[in-house]
């Protein structure tokens, strides 16, 4: 056992420094964006930058607390912590709606967003649960419970509703994937119920992340193509786009079968045919249902997807935010317009809405240009890779799972937030970690990270 007072030596300094760099860059941007000449002090607590200074202070204090508490407590109290964050999610539903969502739990003039903290509870319980069931990741109960841990807060978040955080919760799927959890037990129960089918495993249940990519890709293609009609060079013929998608899928399936059958034995050929047919049927079902589901979305969400896919163009209307954000980012040039020089995204000009929270990347990119953007993306990449390095070096599976959870949550926020600033992702309001103005996100991300730092500093003390 190492001595407790050696703690500073065991801290992963690269991660902590990258955290402090991002927090400083964020504060600097909030100060520039929300700057009011009548309140020039960065410590003016009536201003957003003053409050952000305060939130950073609170977060660092919480980080210190995390370090003072023995790390075993998070594992021991994983269930109570999880239940506590769940209860906040329930409580928030009884709060009055702000901007159409019950997202804020108010304490006087301050409020917190329980959804931000639910990520911590979920991450802690998931790692704690999965590390308990040694090597039983292939069983139905494990699959069901681990998914329930993720799905219960998600269900409560749907009720708020908060689409952004909902999407972020799917980041836990990557964690499950990394740990080797397979949905096969569930899928096999269904498939093997059919007479004559005796699968031992499916590609679907094991490789669900590549499958997810394929499904997302298929959905996007279907949405893009299904609005058009094809005439196949025959005048007067109008084949709906969805039929075109199905024909393309059929051709693809035939091609794959041809390739597979060339290099397989007769028995394998039959199996390949079955797999290809199944694949085609499932893809067709997805393609057919995606259109149907798309119509079921709320009209503003539908429009946002249409904007990103380039199916609709309305720069002054529904696509205002994204368009303005892109104009702000794109006008930054190579070196930017200079600090406090944002002409589009400063709060004073207000062309970019939410420019100190969800769209904070805009003023940053506008003021610092590509050089700044590159520094920011690199810093995030460094932080994310560092987290994966930390996660992978743990002897304890618990620590590793938690590390991946933190990494994937941060990655999701980074990818979606920046993606929406550069027009790749539909506008869903989620903050840029450590950067965006806001107490809840600052505190919750800091706690997530400091818990990881604490666990990592004690990695040599645990055996499993």
């Amino acid at each position: 056992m190492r001595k407790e007072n050696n703690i500073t030596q065991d801290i992963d300094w690269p991660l902590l420094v990258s955290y402090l760099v991002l927090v400083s860059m964020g504060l600097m941007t909030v100060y520039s964006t929300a700057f009011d000449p009548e309140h020039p002090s960065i410590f003016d607590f009536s201003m957003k930058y003053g409050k952000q200074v305060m939130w950073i202070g609170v977060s660092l204090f919480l980080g210190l607390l995390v370090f003072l508490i023995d790390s075993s407590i998070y594992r021991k109290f994983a269930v109570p912590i999880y239940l506590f964050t769940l209860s906040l999610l329930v409580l928030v539903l009884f709060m009055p709606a702000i901007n159409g969502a019950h997202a804020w739990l108010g304490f006087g003039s301050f409020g917190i967003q329980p959804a931000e903290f639910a990520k911590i509870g979920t991450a802690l319980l998931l790692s704690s649960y999965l590390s308990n069931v040694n090597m039983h990741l292939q069983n139905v109960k494990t699959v069901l419970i681990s998914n329930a841990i993720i799905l219960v807060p998600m269900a409560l978040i749907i009720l708020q509703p908060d689409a952004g955080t909902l999407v972020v919760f799917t980041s836990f799927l990557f964690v499950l994937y990394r740990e080797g959890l397979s949905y096969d037990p569930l899928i096999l129960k269904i498939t093997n119920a059919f007479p004559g089918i005796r699968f031992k495993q499916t590609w679907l249940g094991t490789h669900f992340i590549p499958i997810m990519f394929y499904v997302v890709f298929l959905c996007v293609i279907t949405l893009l193509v299904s609005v058009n009609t094809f005439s196949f060079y025959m005048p007067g013929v109008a084949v709906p786009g969805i039929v075109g998608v199905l024909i393309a899928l059929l051709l693809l399936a035939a091609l794959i079968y041809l390739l597979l059958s060339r290099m397989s034995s007769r028995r394998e050929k039959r199996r390949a045919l079955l797999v290809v047919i199944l694949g085609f049927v499932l893809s067709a079902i997805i393609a057919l249902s995606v259109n149907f589901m798309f119509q079921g979305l709320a009209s503003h969400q539908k429009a946002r997807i249409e904007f990103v896919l380039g199916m609709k163009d309305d720069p002054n209307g529904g696509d205002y935010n994204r368009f303005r954000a892109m104009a702000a980012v794109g006008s930054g040039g190579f070196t930017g317009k200079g600090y406090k020089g944002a002409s589009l995204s400063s709060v004073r000009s207000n062309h970019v809405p939410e420019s100190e929270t969800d769209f904070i990347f805009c003023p940053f990119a506008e003021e610092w240009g590509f050089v700044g953007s590159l520094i920011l993306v690199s810093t995030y990449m460094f932080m994310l890779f560092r987290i994966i390095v930390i996660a992978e070096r743990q002897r304890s599976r618990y620590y590793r799972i938690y590390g991946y959870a933190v990494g994937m949550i941060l990655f999701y926020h980074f990818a979606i937030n920046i993606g929406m600033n550069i027009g790749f992702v539909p506008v869903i309001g989620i903050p840029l970690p450590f950067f965006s103005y806001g107490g809840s996100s600052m505190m919750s991300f800091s706690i997530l990270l400091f818990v990881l730092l604490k666990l990592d500093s004690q990695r040599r003390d645990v055996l499993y």
Partner: protein
Amino acid sequence: MNFDSRKIVIITFIATIGVIYTFRLFYMQVIDDTWTLRAQEIAEKRHEITPPRGVIFDRNGRKVVSNETYYNLMMTEADITHLDTVAFAKLIGWTPEKVKQRFIEIRVGEGKFYNKYSNKTTSNYQKVRAYPFLKELTLEEIAEIAPHLEDFPGFKEEPTSMRKYPYKSGANILGYIAEVNREDIVNDRYYRPGDNMGRSGIERFYELQLRGQKGVKYIVTSALNNAIEAFAGGKYDTIAKQSEVMKLGLDVVLQTYGEQLMQNKKGCVVAIEPSSGEVLTMISAPSYDPNLLVGKRNISDNYPALIRDENKPLFPRPLASEYPPGSIFKLVQSLIGLQEGVIDVNTGFPCNKSLVGCHNHPYPSDIMKAVQFSCNPYYYQLTKRIIQEGKKPNVFADAEVGLNLWAKYMHSFGLGQKLDSDITGQRPGRIPDADYYDKWYGHHQWAFSTIRSISIGQGEVALTPLQMANIAAIIANKGWFYTPHFVKSLGNSGPLPEFKKKNYTMVEAKHFPPIIEGMRRVVNESGGTARMARMSDIVICGKTGTVENPHGKDHSVFIAFAPKDNPKIAIAVFIENAGFGGSWAAPIASLMIEKYLKGKVTDSIKEKRILDAHLSSMP
């Protein structure tokens, strides 16, 4: 099972996103400048400053058209946080319903825009833009409203300038300005809603000059359109430039005097300076005070009444009314006859009243006397010689050739066609040619006897008073004219080049003196038809006309120039339904000539007779 390889999937995924985002950012920020331009469009607003319209002076430097400051009450919907409609309506003296109606009116007035890509129609109305809620308030009116405006966020006053006509005359020359409509804006992007443009007269013809140049200020604005700072320190700003001063050939004192003389009469007076072609005066009676059509409120109050008025004050008679010229046409017939050689100066024709009616007068033994006595049978016979010159054996074919030649002569006098001038709204008048009669009677179905009325300026012939005045100017110049025009100079540049070109008629200068002598006698010798125009100290040369009018009393017409040597003014007076040309048109012309040449009128009895005459009510 070992799942360590799966970390590679995750790391690859994260790294891929990182690389894609970096490339995308590089493309957006460094390579593609669409976004920079778009950002400029969004944040760097053009703020346009409309200069006051150009000021217009008359030939003697008197200000004819000036500008006066008024105020618009501007409304920006995005700035309206709350509006007490009742209190606001009370402030501006409207009913609350009218206030609500006005909001709708502004929105609808902006029209809609159809986006063919998105297949959607959107309103052009923008909440962040300031629209005039009330237009053209006087200083007194705004002074009552302005102090209370802080209770009504979203409203503010803005100065604007409007036309003012100190002399209240020359309405048909100057024209008026009115607010642009959607179509105007689409045709010329210079205009913005609420801008004015010239609708008639000089204001319309010289719109491009008079409107000046808008100044543009580039400012960085916020989403609520509040100016934040000057863009690039004002490097790209341009200053609004008012049009250069415009100087007219018009003599506004003469114009005003003429309008006075023409009170209670219907008709026209057109005076031209022969040596320059500048229009000295152009009166259309009855007319209106141009101040009646200043600004939107005045236009909507007064325009309907003016357009409904059965005396048609808005109708610019001098250039758009086509009248048979009557006997003044004989001057041109004489000149053509001399030039063609069908008569010489000493040719006489008997006054054979069986050919065409005439009054009693001595025998017209030469062309001077023919003019002096205005002998109808003389011109019947003269014109017959012009039309039937005997160039073709067939009488019909001969008439065809003769008439076409005659029409060519007429065209060279600027008749039967619009003058290429800055005088807008002209009508061409009518000089019939062979084609014209072929349509009526058929090819080779007519000869001089069929069309004889044209010899005395009746029948199918029609001239505008402007053309009549120009005939006087041509005779004063002995055979040439500058195209009659309004504008003398704009800033330092003189008249347009096309006004500096002499137009020669087909009649040589040597044929003019006998006609001029005849015209002198018309006014100055006993037996002349315009003795009432005579003045002791100025030699006026003129010719009367009495135009037969099938609908009522004859029109009285007189054209003249003076002085005989080195003429300064050529004039045409046309009074509808006033009877004999010598009794009304001639004295009015002489008063105008005296006023112009001497600056005052000595014969107050003549003046009083004209001022007191009510001729417009005559049937």
